């Protein structure tokens, strides 16, 4: 009647197959229900650009886009994402959509060790896709869930601010932006 097998509770240690569209490619993955999306991406798909930091949603190093919105991949079990579209830092880099952000981070030394950078970029990309020209205050607020222990944030805010202005300028000039 409801599609539930009698074995509902016998499968805890068994793997299940999840289907994802990761960076535009369809992939199948065998995961245990308790495997988080970040572990699935890193261990099964070898996409190690997404970093596992605190594993409790505090540090922001594991941000990916799930169906177009930035989420913590440590706070999603891979099985929950079955059927979803996932974009990681690798995909965003290859598509070139954050090339200007990456260049500006580099130019302004907005990274030192680089551990937080993928999460920063994923978050910055979503912010700029929703708010064309955020104030510095809005940028800081958007980054409030991303820890950086090296830079002191100032250069990161500078970089995002500069890219927002450049993209706005390009749009206003009819260039269509990045």
């Amino acid at each position, binding site marked *: 009647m*409801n599609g539930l097998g009698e074995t509902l509770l016998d499968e805890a240690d068994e793997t299940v197959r999840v289907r994802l569209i990761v960076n535009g490619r369809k992939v199948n993955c065998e995961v245990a229900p308790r495997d988080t999306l970040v572990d699935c991406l890193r261990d099964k798909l070898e996409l190690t650009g997404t970093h596992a930091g605190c594993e409790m*949603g505090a540090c922001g190093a594991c941000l990916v886009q799930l169906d177009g919105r930035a989420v913590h991949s440590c706070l999603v079990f891979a099985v929950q994402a079955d059927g979803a579209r996932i974009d990681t830092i690798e995909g965003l880099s290859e598509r070139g959509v954050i090339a200007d952000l990456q260049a500006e981070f580099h130019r302004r030394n907005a990274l030192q060790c680089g551990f937080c950078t993928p999460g920063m970029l994923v978050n910055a990309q979503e912010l700029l896709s929703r708010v064309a020209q955020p104030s510095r205050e809005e940028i800081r607020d958007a980054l409030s869930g991303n820890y950086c222990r090296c830079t002191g944030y100032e250069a990161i805010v500078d970089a995002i601010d500069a890219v927002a202005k450049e993209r706005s300028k390009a749009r206003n000039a009819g260039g269509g932006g990045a």
Partner: protein
Amino acid sequence: MKARAFSYFRATTIDQALDAHARAGDDARFIAGGQSLVPALSLRLQAPRLLIDITHIDELRGVRREGGHLRIGALTRHCEMLSEPLIAEFAPLLAAAAPFVAHPAIRNRGTFGGSVALADPASEFPAMTLALDAEIEIAGPSGRRRIKADDFFIDLFETALQPGELITAIHIPLFKADQRFAFDELARRRGDYALVGCGIMATLTGRRIDDVRISFFSVGNTPTRVKGAEATLIGSGLDAERIAAAQGALEGDLAPPESDEVPPAMRLHLARVLLGRLLGRLGEDA
């Protein structure tokens, strides 16, 4: 840390979800956004045998007008509180509180129903259901029911939800032209849990308060209405003397817990400061 092994079931109807819960002998948890549950599982504070994913149940989705209420589906995400026009028009207090809920990436995934069901005493939305005089719509093994927010929050992380029950929607009386609202919180850093937070819904005639509901969070085991302060305000204008009286009444309304970080006297002081600011803002708007 990693969660203990569990089984996973994705329900597409409420009946499926309730049935799965019963079959697991109630050793199960419903998961929606999972922004509090996943960390609790990863830290092994909880270790159910079965996780029942309710995010694919259509009946739990959507925001719509139903008579004099706004029905907000339990799966409505925090970020939708900021983007949904019906919320902005008919439940603006929720839209005002939403930017203070955690961080953007958490808001992209966390759900309104999940926040209310968890009943974290430091969370914004549970407290706002009190200020809004909301009704919680619940489905469970013994059928459907509705309960007033006033009767829902019982103790620390304890609500009127019985084992196997889940929140299906939250009903908010539609915001009216003679109503005013105010929200703010005091936190050490943006996105941190508030040291103290407050939301107010008031019905005014000119500057006279005809009705008011004031709800605090981060002040004790549950979100807390301050009925003493409310009583001092009803029937009076929002002048400095009356605001001071309401601030004074908080001592009888609130009993902040002992804490090394924020002693009770400090929290009470912050609550007074916050209430004064918010009532001041209401007065400016009136």
